[in-house]
């Protein structure tokens, strides 16, 4: 029964062609047909007849390759098929193995013997099958077991076989580095072969090997040089050029020697691919060679003006590689780059954009930004945001290094906000606030821009602009003294359309309204005082422009408007908004009839003005950028126990803090936070230390409230024995001054050098953490490089010096190699992000030229 079944299956087995036809005939999706066929295959493949089995396997491979069917269950059958003596079956079997086996396949080891048999076969095609399979699935064990066979084949008389053996060598070396001892010699001998195909294979292998570890192959440079000069085969030359690109970057003398033959090739009438490779080699490895570089740049120009978009893209790409070190090349081709901005191809546009950004400096930043803004308006959302993003990045780099005219930059930011596709609201908002904090002279302009943004009702509907609006609102409130008409600002902040804003931003709006109100009241009262008494106390308001002069009418209309606007919010669902609205309403309620009183009874107790003065003091403290590591710079004063168990605190704050369940660590962190934030405010005026600016941590009014409640836990202003590293401001440093008494002089902003146009002062904080990526060194390459070096040393090559280098560096060289791997990986990263103007490139070249110092540098 079973045998007749199997006979039936064999006789009526569908061939691959039938299967394919069947699939094509399916009208309603092929999944049912495929699963049916799969069942058939399962039955057929279990039969003993090898040819049936192999056809079943063939069909299965097809399904796996194109229709995503899993074929790992058939692994053992594949092994069976491979043992067939028929070439056709063998082929199918090996193909299935190459396609489906991986390191985890359990039956992988079973094919070792079969592979060995086939590798030793006299039929070169069987050999080639086995080699091909080995190259795809070779594991450590397989590589180890079959090294000797591969070795034999490397010296085979049949070029066909030799070529394939060379192809396999890469994998074998990778998996089993000791194979090098055996095979390397033959590999190098093949470098001298006259057969171009063998040569191309060998050079290809070396190309890959040098990518991983260039130093080990320096001794072979003379052979490569010979090939470079003699060969006329494009493929071979391309590979050799790649090898030299890697070698020349670590051995500058080589660069000089190689420059001439490369120029020769460039001048010949060669194919574009070879030409491009020459260009690429020159700009990446040989950029010190004057003539070569000039020739390469001339050829790049030819690429740039060509109509073929491929060439344009590649020209731009090559230009971006050379840009960091040789900006003149980019400047020469400026028109072509700008033209490329309007190209149809988004890749080309992006490359052009990055190149343009590489060119930007103080003088041309406004011109280039103008050009880019025009393009941004014309293009689709993706490119538009790329443009905006890169302009923002370039201008804000190094604390706005290249921006000279901040008024212009602020108006540019306002323009960006109005571009329809703009998605960079977050960054723009951040920069608005940042500039407001760091650049005092720009604050009037900032307030003007913010007012324009706030007044426009259309912007409120655009969700991506909300961060910008919140920044504008904050800036208007904080720097309201620079504004001309505070009434307009308050009106804009309270307009009905603000209901479109999310609650968090509305809260900011309300708070800014509060600040505006306080400022206006203060102005009103000081105006009153100046009329009532000759003794004028100019406390804080620095601006008393005629527009700000408040009459009773205007101030009461302001107060009324605010009340009206906030009344509706006092019942809103969001607690933050409601709370803030209520705060302001409470204040206005208190103030309102005091104002009315004072009109009639002048000279009497001005309670209201005292209340206003108090609020105004609260808002007068300037919040400035504080380094994130500022706290760490101060050693703890003696007697201050930060981590002590603060149970009393829990009693007080118990209803606010979450119940401490597991340990007291929760308590520590919250109490630490409280003292930290206070310390931060106090320290901020004492020093000019590190990195990023942060937004003001808490509003000062909340802080004052909190302090009232928990005053006993705050640090008193006693002498502390701190010493800190900053040089200026020595006398005030040993004491924590009480809050709210910060003078502007205690900042020590960096002054810019003299320029023709006076540039406003930008408060800079020193560079903080500048972390470098340290990728893990792959330990696989080490034994390989060591083996290669041993092999080369044993050959007694001419370059004794290189040998000595190797010997010397062999043991510290292990460390060096791992650091070189880091450098190399960094190099890869640098090359990948060369479009993004990685400055690491110059570092990398410096590293490359001084091998012995690598360890120190990276450590």
């Amino acid at each position, binding site marked *: 029964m079973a045998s007749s079944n199997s006979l039936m299956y064999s006789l009526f087995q569908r061939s691959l*062609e039938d299967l*394919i036809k069947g699939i*094509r005939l399916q009208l309603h999706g092929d999944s049912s047909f495929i699963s049916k066929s799969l069942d058939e295959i399962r039955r057929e493949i279990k039969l003993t007849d090898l040819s049936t089995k192999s056809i079943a396997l*063939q069909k299965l491979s*097809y399904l796996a*390759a*194109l229709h*995503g069917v*899993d074929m790992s269950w058939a692994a053992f059958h594949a092994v069976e098929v491979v043992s067939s003596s028929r*070439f*056709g079956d063998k*082929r*199918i079997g090996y*193909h299935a193995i190459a396609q489906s086996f*991986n*390191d985890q396949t359990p039956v992988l080891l079973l094919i070792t013997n079969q592979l060995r048999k086939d590798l030793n076969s006299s*039929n070169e*095609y069987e050999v*080639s099958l086995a*080699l*091909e399979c080995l*190259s*795809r699935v070779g594991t450590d064990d397989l590589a180890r077991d079959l090294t000797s066979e591969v070795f034999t084949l490397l010296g085979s008389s049949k070029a*066909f076989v030799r*070529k*394939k053996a*060379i*192809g*396999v060598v*890469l*994998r074998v070396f990778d998996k089993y580095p000791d194979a090098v001892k055996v095979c390397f010699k033959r590999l190098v001998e093949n470098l001298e072969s006259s057969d171009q*195909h063998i040569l*191309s*294979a060998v050079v*290809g*292998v070396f*190309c*890959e090997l040098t*990518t991983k570890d260039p130093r080990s192959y320096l001794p072979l440079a003379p052979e490569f040089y010979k090939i470079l000069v003699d060969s006329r085969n*494009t*493929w071979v030359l*391309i590979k050799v050029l*790649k090898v030299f690109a890697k070698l020349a970057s670590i051995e500058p003398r080589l660069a000089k020697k190689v420059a001439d033959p490369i120029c020769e090739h460039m001048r010949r009438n060669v*194919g*574009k*691919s070879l030409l*491009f*490779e020459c260009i690429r080699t020159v700009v990446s490895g040989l950029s010190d060679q004057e003539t070569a570089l000039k020739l390469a740049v001339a050829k790049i120009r030819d690429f740039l003006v060509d109509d073929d*978009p*491929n060439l*344009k*893209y*590649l020209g731009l790409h090559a230009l971006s590689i050379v840009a960091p070190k040789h900006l003149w090349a980019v400047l020469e081709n400026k028109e072509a780059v700008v033209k490329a901005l309007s190209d*149809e*191809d988004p*890749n*080309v546009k992006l490359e052009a954009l990055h190149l343009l950004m590489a060119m930007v400096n103080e003088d041309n930043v406004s011109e280039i930004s103008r050009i880019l803004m025009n393009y941004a308006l014309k293009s689709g959302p993706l490119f538009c945001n790329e443009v905006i993003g890169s302009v923002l990045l370039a201008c804000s780099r190094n604390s706005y290094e290249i921006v000279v005219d901040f008024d212009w930059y602020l108006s540019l930011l306002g323009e960006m906000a109005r571009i329809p596709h703009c998605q960079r609201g977050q960054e723009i908002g951040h920069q608005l606030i940042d500039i407001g904090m760091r650049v005092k002279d720009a604050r009037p302009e900032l307030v003007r821009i913010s007012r324009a943004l706030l007044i426009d009702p259309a912007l409120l509907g655009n969700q991506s602009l909300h961060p910008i609006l919140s920044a504008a609102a904050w800036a208007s409130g904080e720097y309201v003294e620079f504004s001309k008409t505070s009434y307009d600002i308050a009106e804009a902040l309270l307009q009905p359309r603000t209901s479109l804003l999310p609650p968090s931003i509305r809260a900011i709006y309300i708070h800014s309204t509060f600040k505006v109100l306080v400022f206006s009241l203060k102005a009103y009262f000081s105006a009153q005082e100046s009329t009532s008494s000759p003794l004028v106390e100019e406390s804080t308001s620095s601006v008393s422009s005629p527009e700000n002069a408040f009459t009773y009418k205007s101030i009461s209309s302001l107060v009324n408007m605010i009340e009206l606007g906030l009344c509706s919010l006092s019942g809103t669902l969001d607690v933050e908004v409601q709370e803030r609205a209520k705060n302001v309403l409470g204040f206005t309620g208190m103030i309102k009839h005091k104002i009315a009183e004072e009109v009639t009874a002048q000279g009497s107790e001005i309670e209201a003005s005292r209340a206003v003065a108090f609020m105004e003091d609260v808002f007068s403290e300037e919040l400035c950028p504080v380094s994130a590591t500022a706290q760490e710079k101060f050693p703890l004063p003696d007697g201050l126990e930060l981590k002590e168990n603060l149970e009393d605190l829990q009693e007080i704050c118990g209803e606010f803090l979450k119940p401490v369940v597991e340990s007291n660590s929760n308590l520590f962190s919250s109490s630490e936070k409280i003292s930290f934030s206070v310390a931060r405010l106090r320290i901020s005026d004492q020093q000019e230390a590190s990195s990023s600016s942060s937004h003001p941590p808490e509003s000062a009014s909340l802080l004052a409230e909190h302090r009232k409640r928990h005053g006993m836990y705050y640090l008193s202003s006693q002498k502390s024995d701190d010493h800190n590293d900053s040089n200026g401001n020595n006398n005030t440093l040993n004491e924590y001054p009480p809050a709210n008494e910060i003078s502007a002089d205690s900042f020590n902003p960096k002054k810019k050098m003299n320029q023709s146009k006076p540039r406003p002062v930008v408060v800079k904080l020193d560079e903080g953490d500048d972390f470098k990526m340290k990728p893990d060194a792959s330990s696989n390459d080490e034994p390989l490089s060591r083996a290669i070096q041993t092999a080369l040393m044993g050959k007694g090559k001419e370059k004794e010096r290189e040998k000595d280098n190797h010997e010397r560096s062999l043991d510290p060289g292990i460390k060096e190699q791992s650091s070189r791997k880091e450098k190399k990986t960094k190099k*890869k990263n640098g*090359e*990948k992000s060369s479009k993004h103007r990685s400055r690491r490139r110059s570092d990398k070249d410096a590293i490359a030229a001084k091998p012995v110092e690598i360890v120190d540098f990276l450590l």
Partner: protein
Amino acid sequence: MGIRFILMVNKQGQTRLAQYYEWLTLEERRALEGEIVRKCLARNDQQCSFVEHRNYKIVYRRYASLFFMVGVDDDENELAILEFIHLLVETMDKHFGNVCELDIMFHLEKAHFMLEEMVMNGCIVETSKANILSSIQLMDKAH
């Protein structure tokens, strides 16, 4: 290491040939193919033939109804890969005589063998049409 994979996909997005030189699971392969095909099909003829994808590049070219896509490392010469694709198409054309998509569909193994002759381990080892075709013909005879 040079070439990572070679794909042939038609305009409807169906894969006709997939050769990978590094191990990826089935799901990974499908996801990869889907992403890349979408990217390439969305481009028109005036745009350049190179697409960035994750940490490698795709070099592609369209021949009639079939897209040939090769995924390569970042440091590979793109123009050379374009020439390689052209070489592959010419070889198949010579072997099948006016190759079309159907030929590839029905003789998938032949296409695979041709590729195997030309690329080993991700490196291009054979670039002469004559050599490739003669080996294939001899192997067919030995069949």
